[in-house]
């Protein structure tokens, strides 16, 4: 796939990204409910990152070593953030 990514594929990827961007922006522009807006905004952001990673960064044709370099830092950040949540909850309740 890496060597067959054509001009049309680049354009299709751009269109996908713009559509996802509009989904995220519409959550704010249309004044949707808070929960629905947050869900849409972050779902769109994750989907955009996925599209960029899959089509532009060609992650789907990479091996485990590269995947681990992508996933380990992300997992570490998420774990560290979760570790701090009890502290934040205690702070909020006092």
């Amino acid at each position: 796939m890496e060597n067959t990514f054509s001009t049309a594929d680049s354009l299709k990827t751009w269109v996908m990204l713009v559509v996802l961007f509009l989904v995220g922006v519409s959550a704010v522009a249309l004044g949707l409910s808070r929960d629905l807006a947050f869900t849409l905004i972050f779902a769109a952001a994750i989907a955009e990152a996925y599209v960029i990673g899959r089509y532009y960064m060609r992650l789907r044709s990479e091996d485990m070593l590269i995947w681990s370099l992508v996933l380990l830092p992300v997992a570490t950040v998420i774990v560290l953030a979760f570790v701090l949540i009890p502290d934040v909850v205690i702070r909020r309740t006092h």
Partner: protein
Amino acid sequence: MTESVAEIGVPHAAHEVSELSASYEIGKLGMWIFLAGETMLFGGLMGVFTLVAFSRGGWGSDGAHVNWRLAGINTIILFTSSMTASLAQGAARGGDLARVRRYLSASGLLGVLFLVVKAFEYAGDVREGFTPLAGLFWNFYYLMTGLHVLHLFAGVVVFFGMLLWVKPQNAGSWLERKLKYACLYWYFVEVVWVFLYALVYLSPSVQ
């Protein structure tokens, strides 16, 4: 007394290195390791931003003043620059150096346009009194977006610098590889922006 090169094992080591290079693209691996570090940097900042927002019950009126429309224009600019970067990679694979130059220049110029729009955005914020010292939200806002701007500026310099390498004697896999590393960095900067836009611009603007 002088040891031969074979005796001290240099050819053997060189052979192992060349085998490793053949089985793995060292430059690409290096770029991914660099990006892993950058992920920790931006991910850590975004994590802290989210936790602080949660501990304060949101950002209140501060967050409502960010210019998400102008930042939205920048998002489209960045998407377009990534598309032209991708097209430059395709042109390099096809050996079309004129198109490589054209698409690389377009990506670099779109990066410059992003920086110009960002400068207008910062100027508007400061005019309204939202300086980096205006409160915790604005501390985070300038720190995270400023760090992203620095990364984007570095990418622009790399793209314009790469134009010097787009010569017939460099055409082929060498140019393709260098372009791939530069584009990988640019796409990463784009991914960071996607999350910054959701976190710093859109989320605080939700009523």
